[in-house]
């Protein structure tokens, strides 16, 4: 007898509870499933993503920027890039969208326990790391020192400012840099790699989580290697075009791996096995 099959592609309705404008291009959408029972039971792990549906726009993968330690709401931080994300930026509180997930291999939180964690991000790249950082803060005694290096184009492009402020208050070493200064900016100017120069991490005790555009990514990897980080101590999350989210449709192929199901979180050691543009240029 044919068994009933769960419809893995069916989006569930979720309501926009709050919109946090992070900068002119990035907003964080605080969402809850309309089905309260489902919403209360929903759990994810940091580094996973949701497939988001918007009317007439199809679906796109968006990484979850909230931490599972604060259940009840899903945060999706979204940069305006294409048709679907542009439509999301037109959402208002109370509107509904479609969600399915969570999908993908998360950050290995258990392996990170007791470690000093160094987060390096550029632009929207801080979104997937935000959930990890907040998770660490919620279980502060399980992790070592927390350092966040964050690069933006200009001071007014600096996103997640309220998070950065809260993190600083809770003892996170947050350091910012911009590509181009504006009047009133007295912080660092230059690539995020330059912030690494000032750090003296206990490399053996540390793991680095990197997320940002390909150019930044490559530059940071070079710098980390010269600081003594091994490829196993560097984690990242990959961005790819996705359609199914569950490892079938192959749009997110990475030399034999699927970013959606084998990733999106990979260690640099794993990525080195693959021919991918992020590493080969």
């Amino acid at each position: 007898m044919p068994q009933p099959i769960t419809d893995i592609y069916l989006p569930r309705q979720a309501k926009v509870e709050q919109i946090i404008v992070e900068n002119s291009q990035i907003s964080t959408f605080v969402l809850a499933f309309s089905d309260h029972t489902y919403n209360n039971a929903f759990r994810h792990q940091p580094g996973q993503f949701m497939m988001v549906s918007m009317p007439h726009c199809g679906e796109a993968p968006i990484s979850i920027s909230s931490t599972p330690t604060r259940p009840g709401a899903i945060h999706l931080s979204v940069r305006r890039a294409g048709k679907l994300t542009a439509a999301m930026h037109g959402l208002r509180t109370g509107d509904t969208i479609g969600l399915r997930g969570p999908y993908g291999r998360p950050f290995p939180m258990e392996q990170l326990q007791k470690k000093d964690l160094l987060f390096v991000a550029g632009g929207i790249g801080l979104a997937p790391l935000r959930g990890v950082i907040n998770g660490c803060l919620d279980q502060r005694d399980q992790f070592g020192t927390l350092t966040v290096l964050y690069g933006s184009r200009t001071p007014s492009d600096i996103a997640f400012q309220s998070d950065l402020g809260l993190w600083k208050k809770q003892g996170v070493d947050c350091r910012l840099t911009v590509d181009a200064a504006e009047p009133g900016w007295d912080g660092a100017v230059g690539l995020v790699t330059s912030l690494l120069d000032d750090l003296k991490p206990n490399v053996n005790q540390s793991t680095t989580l990197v997320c940002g555009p390909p150019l930044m990514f490559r530059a940071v990897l070079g710098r980390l290697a010269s600081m003594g980080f091994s490829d196993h101590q560097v984690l990242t999350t990959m961005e790819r075009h996705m359609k199914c989210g569950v490892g079938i449709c192959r749009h997110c192929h990475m030399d034999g791996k699927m970013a959606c199901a084998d990733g999106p979180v990979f260690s640099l050691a794993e990525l080195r096995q693959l021919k991918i543009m992020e590493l080969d240029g």
Partner: protein
Amino acid sequence: MPHTSELADSHLLKKDHLKGFLRKLAKEYRLVAPVRNRHSDVLFTVIDDLDAAEIELNEPPQNSLKQFFLPQQERLYTYTTSPEGYDFQPIPTSIPPTVYFGVHPCDLSAVLYMDVVFSRRQRDPFYLRRRQGSVLIGINCNSPAPKCFCNATGSGPFIEMGSDLQLTDLGDRFLVEAGRTSGHGLIERWQGFFAAATDKDRAARYQAFLEARGRFSRQVHVEQAIRRLEADAVPDEVFAELSLRCQDCGGCAYLCPTCTCFTISDQPLDAISGQRLRSWDACTFAGFTAMAGGHNPVQAKTEAIRQRFTHKLRDDVRLTGRPSCVGCGRCVGICFGGTDIVRFVERACQGSL
């Protein structure tokens, strides 16, 4: 390949009675078989009138079973937006229980591969609702077609698994082997059509296999290409040369019985409603990997072509132990620029033995 079927449950069906048997099946199942139409093309076709259909078991059909389990374009949901919210309604599809008759070993292997793709990581509801309740009746290939190379991919010309019933043409009769419980059930149900096969019949099957194996018109060194890919020994120039010739038609992927890449997209019906479609896609298209905003992690055609061949001949071997090219030859000779898998295998193996 063992010289007799591992499943000793074998029977005889006289060719004279094939149509009678199919007529019985057609009463309880939808019947699909390769039919030569009035334009002389052979297509897997839903047979409504058994007497009018010219079932063709020699020339391989131009389409495969892919389009029955993964249609070229399938409607998944309708959606509406209203003040109450944004709501998806699944589109119900009732697929009648279907007998797929006259399936060649390459296409049977392809179905087995698709079963893995659509249930390994997640059970794909849309594939499975079409696949469940299907009965596969295979036919071994006594005379492989000129473009065939299933001998090189381990998926023919005879096959030991994958079908419910497996037929071998022994001249005036078919040797029928029941591969699965459902196959035994079919034979039991209509046992009047079948006689017990003797060792002589099984010997005749083996003889047919030996002769078929000798009838391939080309040697395609698939295993060697697999080894070269695994050793990363295929020069970049091979992919560059092939990519210059690729004309971006997608035909190789669309005709391929194991190319299962798909896309999901929305088609608005009006301002507040629409439908979500799933349709075939091809990894050689530039837009296959392009992300919102224009960035494309596959930056050159060369890389797309590399992905196509490494997926079939390296990644799937790692995953399932065998290539997902089943040697059916459909993509051979149809490429606008001559970038087919046989040419790739030739180029990849150049200068090595």
